[in-house]
């Protein structure tokens, strides 16, 4: 019952390409949306549940991407091994960084993560010998999983969909575990959390590392799927976009983050036809959502539906009562 939402989502994800085979919006846009979902769900653990902001999440995304790109093209490593290496690198850096950086709060944490993101981006641009510099690194071989080569958009859809469902499932479980409750306690009040015996520093470190691992995982898949990486794809703007996705969908809700990621991807794709007006409409819609649904798209809408439902059922109850009263009176 707890995972009911997950199964509904999974069925939808599986049915889409069967109902609309070879549809651009399912395969190509779907892959982009899937990667965004992984990133947003990971960031949501940190932002939504633990209440720590990160404006440098694209850096971990990039580490995964570049680890896969460099190791597969320059050292001929198999894709899965490069993916693991990317996870290891991102995880270690996140772990080393977590203690000093997560001591900061509010604006200071935002600044520190922002700086971190920019530093990693500068490294990608400057370390030309390794990263190929601003023009990027191409010729990344397709991902090979147990003898199965993932190459076409359809195959990629299945891989990304599976990865996304795995991440959502993991996230739902983390949130409902002891760590999840500790995270929410930290968000509520760090002092109070410490008082009830939560090792807040450790909890924050854990969630930071998990969130970085999710991002690096997405990065590795991204590198193989695009067959090309360049610093553009991991810039500050991407970090900001990720934060927008989490806030737009609704903080502290795994499906909220997923919904935000999908909504923003589709919005961008749908607005492309407006050309010059794209950014205006884009910004306007985001502002409208934040004004009228401050809890976020998903959370706000589900709450709205719940309230409506309660209103209807209470009216019905009231009517039933009235009817009963009437019959008694008669």
């Amino acid at each position, binding site marked *: 019952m707890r995972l009911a939402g997950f199964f509904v989502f999974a069925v939808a994800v599986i049915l889409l390409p069967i109902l609309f085979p*070879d549809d*651009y*919006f399912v*395969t*190509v846009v779907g892959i*982009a949306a899937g990667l965004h979902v992984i990133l947003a769900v990971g960031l949501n653990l940190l932002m939504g549940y633990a209440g720590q902001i990160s404006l440098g999440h694209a850096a971990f995304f990039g580490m995964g991407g570049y680890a896969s790109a460099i190791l597969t093209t320059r050292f001929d490593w198999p894709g899965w091994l490069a993916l693991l290496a990317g996870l290891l690198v991102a995880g270690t850096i996140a772990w080393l960084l977590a203690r000093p950086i997560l001591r900061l709060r509010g604006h200071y944490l935002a600044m520190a993560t922002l700086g971190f993101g920019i530093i990693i981006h500068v490294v990608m*641009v*400057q370390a*030309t010998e390794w990263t190929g*510099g*601003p*023009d*990027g690194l*191409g*010729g990344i071989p397709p991902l090979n999983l147990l003898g199965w080569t993932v190459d076409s*958009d359809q195959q990629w859809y299945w891989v990304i969909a599976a990865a996304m469902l795995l991440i959502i499932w993991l996230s739902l479980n983390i949130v409902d575990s002891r760590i999840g409750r500790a995270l929410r306690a930290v968000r509520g009040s760090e002092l109070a959390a410490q008082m009830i015996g939560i090792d807040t520093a450790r909890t924050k470190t854990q969630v930071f590392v998990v969130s970085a691992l999710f991002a690096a995982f997405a990065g590795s898949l991204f590198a193989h799927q*695009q*067959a*090309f990486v*360049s610093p*553009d*794809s991991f*810039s500050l703007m991407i970090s900001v976009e990720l934060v927008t996705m989490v806030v737009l969908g609704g903080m502290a809700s795994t499906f909220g983050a997923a919904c935000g990621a999908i909504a923003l991807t589709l919005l961008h*794709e749908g607005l*492309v036809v407006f*050309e010059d007006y794209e950014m205006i409409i884009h910004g306007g819609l985001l502002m409208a959502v934040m004004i009228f649904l401050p809890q976020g798209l998903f959370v706000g809408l589900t709450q709205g539906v719940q309230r409506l439902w309660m209103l209807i059922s209470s009216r019905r109850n009231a009517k039933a009562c009235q009817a009963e009263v009437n019959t008694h009176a008669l």
Partner: protein
Amino acid sequence: MLIQRLIRIFIAIMLLAGVNGVSAAEPIKIGTFLTVTGPAAFLGDPELKTLQMVIEDLNAKGGLNGRKIELVHYDTGGNAREALNFVKRLIQKDQVDLIVGGTTSGDSLAVIPEVEKARIPLISLAGAVEIIEPVRKWVFKVAHTDRMAAAKIFEDLRKRGLNKVALITGDGGFDKSGREQVLKLAPEYGMTLVADESYGNKDTDMTTQLTKIRATDAQAIINFGFGQAPAIVTKNIKQLGINLPVYQSHGVASKTFIDLAGEAAEGVRLPAAALVVAEQLPDTDPQKPVLLAYKKEYEAKHGPVSTFGGHAYDGIMIAAEAIKRAGGTDKAKMRDEIEKTSGFIGTAGVFNMTQKDHMGLNLYAFKMVEIRDGAWKIVE
């Protein structure tokens, strides 16, 4: 009743529109993805305007093989990831017949695997030599490479009997790839690099690096970059009283550079496309009429021309010629015909493509120009 009648009228209109759509010949769809916004907008903007202008002209003349041309454009904002998604959209959703575009090298390189997989001809407007080296079956390009610029500079240095050069470059993609080519080509031309300095493209002062260069026995300074930075370098050289010949790249071949660098720009040499010095070409030059015609039309509509708009002109015209010769939009036939492009006179030079050379320009396409009295002067 009224509603029913309205619905009937609506259906009738839809049917008529449908019939009309079928009766006219299917348009030829040309896709493009350019950087019209963002830091590289000054490249993509004239490119898009040129594409629209040329296609309008072609359509006014009845299109190609009796079919009108339709341009489908997406703005990448200089983001390679967007570029790839847009190219997928062009191929899968819009089902274009051919793609002209990729303003920046990053955008172009990012889409190459997809284009090769989809087997659709791509004519890139970007500079990096990696786009066509190694040769890819479906990928062509029309812009000068940075290697050609480096070679042209070295040729000029050799003519002047200079062989010790100091290099100073920025941290952008264009700068870095230019630097690589300079380093690679220097030994071939018997040049010794006595300094290899770099700066950030947003820096406002490069005197530190130039002071180091002053301490070497360099006989000339080469600066690769575009935007503000090269103008600052040029000014700083003057301020420090360094009296050496200064070479800039084709990246600054615009009036803005002369305006920014002011008097310091006097005597600076750079390889430039013939477009900026069209009027000075001898009347016997086959490029002259093409350049003047494009310049006149573009300037009447949009203001001063840039070489980048010229690349778009070359790209779309090569595509148009190939479609004419192929007699349709069969992708393999169009590809073969693009590869057979020979003697095509464009704004960048005379194109002679072969199986091994998917650009087909030689060094002749570049003119060595010097800035004299605030204007370009051919010096060969």
